[in-house]
């Protein structure tokens, strides 16, 4: 029987993230152009959407409406749980608690992409419409987080700007746009654009993770000033929300891979859509808090330990419930 090597728990793209972090720690002047950051994030959003749309065209999804309802409920629930914890245990003011709840209620597209790469590497299938859930989960958490802050401060709860900002922000727009194009075009007609959007996906993700590593490396200094509570929250919140996501996934009948990805989404914290929307809707909140927790703690946690954990949970539940 051939020697089966112990599987490295991290996907190779994670090494690129570590390279970026290390570059900052040794104080290298490595800097990726701002235009590249934006280009890569546009590409990733569009490619994830396209992939999802295409898969949905290939194998139509049954019973989508109840699944959508459950996923939206998950998006509403996460900030509802996070907010009181942040207020009571973390003693944050209502603005900061609302802002943090909004970031963790929304999702990180790049964490999702690392999760997809992790599954692909292991040959584990997942339900084709997961990218639809990415788009669905972008907005509700942000709206609820902002709403909670407004209610707690007896502000007139004007959710217009935040909702507009996130629904028309580039994340939702490109994800939904990609989904629609992939779904309308279908596998036959998507043809040659596959080479760019699918063939290069993982390489582009690796490059983006170098950039994100640089950004996180910059934040590590802020981390030293952050409270122990915030760091703990950044690790425990994804575990709790991620497990809730996995459970929801199993409950609505997703494959183990799909449930793991829904856990990844629920356990991830947004740093593209949420910061922009929250900055406008909750200007009183300190933006450094949410970014430090989301990017400095939760993102690294998820791509190294979180995703394997969500997958193991999903596979365990699958074996157990069968």
């Amino acid at each position, binding site marked *: 029987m051939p020697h089966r090597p112990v599987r490295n728990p991290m996907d190779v793209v994670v090494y690129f993230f570590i390279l970026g972090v290390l570059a900052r720690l040794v104080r290298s002047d490595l*800097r*990726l152009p*701002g235009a590249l*950051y*934006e280009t890569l994030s546009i590409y990733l959003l569009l490619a994830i959407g396209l992939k999802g749309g295409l898969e949905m065209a290939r194998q139509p999804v049954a019973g989508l409406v109840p699944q959508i309802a459950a996923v939206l409920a998950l998006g509403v629930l996460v900030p509802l749980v996070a907010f009181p914890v942040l207020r009571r245990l973390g003693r944050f003011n209502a603005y900061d608690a609302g802002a943090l709840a909004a970031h963790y209620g929304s999702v990180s597209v790049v964490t999702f992409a690392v999760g997809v790469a992790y599954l692909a590497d292991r040959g584990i299938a997942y339900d084709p419409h997961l990218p639809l859930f990415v788009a669905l989960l972008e907005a509700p958490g942000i709206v609820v987080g902002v709403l909670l802050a407004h209610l707690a401060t007896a502000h007139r709860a004007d959710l217009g700007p935040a909702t507009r900002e996130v629904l028309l922000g580039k994340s939702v727009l490109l994800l939904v746009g990609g989904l629609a194009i992939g779904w309308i075009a279908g596998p036959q007609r998507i043809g040659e654009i596959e080479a760019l959007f699918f063939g290069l996906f993982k390489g582009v993700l690796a490059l983006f993770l170098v*950039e994100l590593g*640089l*950004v996180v490396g*910059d934040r590590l200094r802020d981390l030293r000033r952050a409270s122990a509570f915030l760091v703990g929250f950044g690790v425990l919140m994804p575990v709790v929300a991620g497990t809730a996501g996995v459970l929801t996934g199993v409950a609505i009948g997703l494959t183990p891979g799909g449930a793991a990805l829904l856990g990844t989404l629920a356990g991830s914290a947004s*740093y*593209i859509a949420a*910061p*922009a929307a929250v*900055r*406008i809707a909750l*200007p*009183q909140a300190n*933006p*450094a808090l949410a*970014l430090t927790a989301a990017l400095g703690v939760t993102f690294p946690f998820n791509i190294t330990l979180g995703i394997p954990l969500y997958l193991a949970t999903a596979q365990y539940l699958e074996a157990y419930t069968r």
Partner: protein
Amino acid sequence: MNTHSRKLLVIITEAALEERITRDAMRLGAHGYTAVDVRGAGGGGKRAGDWEADRNVQIEIICDDAVAAAIAEHVQRTYFEHYAVSLFVSDVHVLRPEKF
């Protein structure tokens, strides 16, 4: 060179505010503006401009004294408390008074 006195109002702030502040300025009487992406540091820490949440914008507005005062006061009232904003005014000379 027959010149006319005007104010140059410069606002350096978070990129997220560009659209709001320029819209406000036009409403308050500015005839135009010029904007450029910048990076920087100040009371609110370093903003290195590597990505959206970290980018500053510098907005320049040439206008008469009254409009400059109105915009400056509006920005002070609306944005100084919660956003990273630097604002300063200087005296400039223009050739076409009707334009600014």
